[in-house]
């Protein structure tokens, strides 16, 4: 989720320091559309699909406030959210604005024609190697963003839009990422073996987190306490 926003802000920042004119125009327009959202509270359900995490669907609330404050909270429970947010990858781009944007043509994504824009960080220290955005030019919506990092593989984010499309806010976000192996020594856990077959854990298995938003409350103000 954070990654999504990070990407969005990366895009916004990108508008001001555009290198490739066509890409810059497009991103500027996307930014303008999204800039109308000062804050929001979104209600949704989160589904985690990671091979070693067994979690029920979680009822969540997302809080957002300009410029880049974002928080997910859930009702009486714990969730593991994939990292790869602001600090790890795109935030560096956002903060330094030190990147090159390349128009990489267009493609068809789930029946929608999208423009591919690649962002290349200029700094050699950046963990992010490449960010690719698939932007729906007609509706000014980011349909998909894909970030490749040196350490943590590739993060993908796909968005589906519905009634909040006019604000550039998705109804559904699907976040895909690489997971490391997970293992704890049995002596620590004192396992109960109920005969259930243990899943074979494939190396570099992709994990997915899916958030479906049912409603947004937009520009009605969000208390700072909720963003702590």
């Amino acid at each position, binding site marked *: 989720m954070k990654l999504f926003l990070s990407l969005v802000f990366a895009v916004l920042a990108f508008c001001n320091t555009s290198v490739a004119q066509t890409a810059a125009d497009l991103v500027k327009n996307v930014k303008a559309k999204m800039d109308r959202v000062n804050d929001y509270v979104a209600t949704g359900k989160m589904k985690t699909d990671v091979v070693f995490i*067994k979690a029920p669907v979680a009822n969540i609330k997302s809080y957002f406030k300009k410029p880049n404050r974002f928080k997910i909270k859930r009702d009486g429970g714990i*969730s593991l*959210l994939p990292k790869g947010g602001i600090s790890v990858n795109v935030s560096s781009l956002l903060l330094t604005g030190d990147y090159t944007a390349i128009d990489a043509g267009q493609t068809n994504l789930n029946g929608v024609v999208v423009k591919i824009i690649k962002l290349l960080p200029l700094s050699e220290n950046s963990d992010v190697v490449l960010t690719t955005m698939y932007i729906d030019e007609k509706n000014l919506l980011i349909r998909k963003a894909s970030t490749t990092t040196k350490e943590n593989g590739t993060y993908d984010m796909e968005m589906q839009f519905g009634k909040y499309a006019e604000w550039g806010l998705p109804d559904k976000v699907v976040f895909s990422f690489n997971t490391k192996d997970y293992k704890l020594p049995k002596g620590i856990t004192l396992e109960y073996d*109920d005969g*259930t077959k243990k899943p074979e854990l494939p190396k570099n298995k992709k994990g997915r987190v899916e958030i479906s938003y049912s409603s947004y409350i937009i520009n009605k103000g969000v208390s700072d306490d909720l963003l702590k």
Partner: protein
Amino acid sequence: MWSLLKIELFKVFKRPRTYIAFIAVWAIVTLIQVAIYVDGAKYMDFVLKDVKDNFDVIGNPLNGYFVCFIILQTLLIHVPLLVALVSADMIAGEANMGTLRLLITKPISRTKLLLSKFLASAIYALILLIWIAILGLFVSMLVFGTDGLMNAKSYEIIILNGNDIFWRYICAFGFAAIALITVASLGFFFSIFAENSLGPIVATMSVIIVFTILTTLDIPLFQSVKHLFFTSHMIGWKGFFEMKLDADGVSIPGTIRNLPAVLKSAGILTLHIVLFTGAAIFIFKRKDVLS
């Protein structure tokens, strides 16, 4: 029978030794709570060492439910010692004191005498467990608050919703009761052969420790026979902290992943109770009392 049981309970709770267990449980539980209060984050880091690089945790994983889980996991290894302290003393202790011969000259059948003694040690185990529940669950809930529970297993992490946990603890404590009574019956069984209580206490603990180690060792030979050890079934309470999955692989709150397996474990433990106690009564009925 009831009045005999009352007499046995009276004796159990008149002895200072009985309260050692309650103090020990209080001490262990408090230690764990203090340790988690002070240093819980580090423990969490260890559990999540493979996860925290890729994931952010939202919610408060270090809550009362998690603390109770740690306490139960730790205590259910140690509490058998405390249960054995009383149950293994039931007959051997009387033999050692020289009161056994007096009891047997009373107009009570040996079967009834032994049953009342076994029930007294079972009730003691239950009261000890309630004590653990009060300190381990309720005090932890008060001190650490409640939230969801992360049940970290060796190959997966199960995340339970906050409102889907308390009933699981009730079931888990019910299961733990059966497990502890199994220990009580084992101690009780050893108790009939000895004339001082140390032997049966050590024997009971040795069985539990050796079996637990064998169960924990990841050696294929032991893994294939571990279901034969009753100690593998004693941790069946953890089965209540797993959920069924739907077709999409999403956990369904309010379900138990493998209830039949948990019930089977409970059944196996109950069978052990009947076996140990039955054998104790069978042998003791024919035994010459020379103490």
